[in-house]
């Protein structure tokens, strides 16, 4: 039993770091691409509204990445049966929602 627990703990430790890696890559370079495109348009056609619009879209996409990362991490913890950490992820999401609501109200 003790050996099983050791192995389970080892596997958990080894597999813990990178559940959200793909999301992080796609989100980072996708949002940076949109922002970059927006900046290029602002430089070439300063009076156009397309550049600022693309930039803001890229910034909003960027904001979504950490939130989605918490969702993916939480899902991964739940899938592995690590209920306390999955619940913590849920608590982070609730706190983030509260933060946005309180911030918007201010």
């Amino acid at each position, binding site marked *: 039993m003790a050996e099983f627990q050791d192995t389970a*703990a080892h596997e*958990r*430790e080894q597999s*813990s*770091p*990178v*559940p*959200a*890696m793909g999301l*992080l*890559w796609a*989100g*980072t370079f996708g*949002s*940076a691409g949109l*922002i*970059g495109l*927006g*900046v290029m348009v*602002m*430089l070439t056609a*300063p009076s156009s509204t397309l*550049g*600022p619009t693309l*930039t*803001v879209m*890229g*910034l*909003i996409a*960027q*904001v*979504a*990445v*950490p*939130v989605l*990362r*918490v969702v993916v*991490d*939480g899902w991964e*913890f739940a899938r592995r049966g690590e209920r*306390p*950490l999955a619940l*913590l*992820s849920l*608590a*982070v999401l609730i*706190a*983030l929602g*509260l*933060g*946005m609501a*309180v*911030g*918007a109200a*201010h």
Partner: protein
Amino acid sequence: MVTTILAYFLVAILAGIIGSMLGLGGGIIIVPALTLLFGVEIHTAVAASVVSVIATSMGASLRYLKEGLINTRVAMLLQVGATLGAVSGAVVEGLLDPHILYLMFGGLMAYSAYSMYQARRLELPQNVEPDAVSRRLALQGSYYDQALGRVVDYQITRTLPGLAVMYLSGAISGLLGIGGGAFKVLAMDQVMRMPIKVSSATSAYMIGVTAAAGSIVYLLRGDVVPQIAGPVALGVLAGAMLGTLLMVRMRGSTLRKLFIPVLLVIAVQMLVKGVGG
């Protein structure tokens, strides 16, 4: 227009390098640079800085996750404290005198800089006994340290006091707008006794989540000026990716020495605001 955008981009690269290496948002560089060098209004500078924190976090996390330097389990636990702290900070805003808070936490930062100076030669924490919470959640970790050329196994202690400091860090950054990243690193390094490289990398991972709530509020309010925030976000992202390349090859003791002046600058910024407003 081209020159100004290029200048924002270059300043942001520097902020990204420092921010990603030390686990900070980079506001310590971006806000003064935008306001003092380019004459940007403080409100706009803070909005650009808050939005760019996410870029620092994303750029840094890519490599640190790959290197095993981010402890996602610790991050998830501490994130609860930091985010709830930020909400509490926003709720009690106006009830507390910010001058007193600036003085208190400026003093605390100065003391932390002194503690960091005393431990400047410390490569890795020694004889760390994991506490019950750390054992229960299996928070321990390991990573390959390129500078030391070996795998480092580490344990975590004083998890609940660390969580309390993280709550405080969230509240302070919510109330004062600065110091959130620095407090996160200090909580993990000095309270929970994690290796400084893991503390910085995990903080870099966490600051993106904390900044998400603030960023969306700034974006919805229309405080974010695309002509400023766009090049800043791109520069910070590029800088963060460069900074991680440097950090993974750096010794923990070197990172500590880099941290000391940054803590002092934050301490002075806070104390000046506390005294003068």
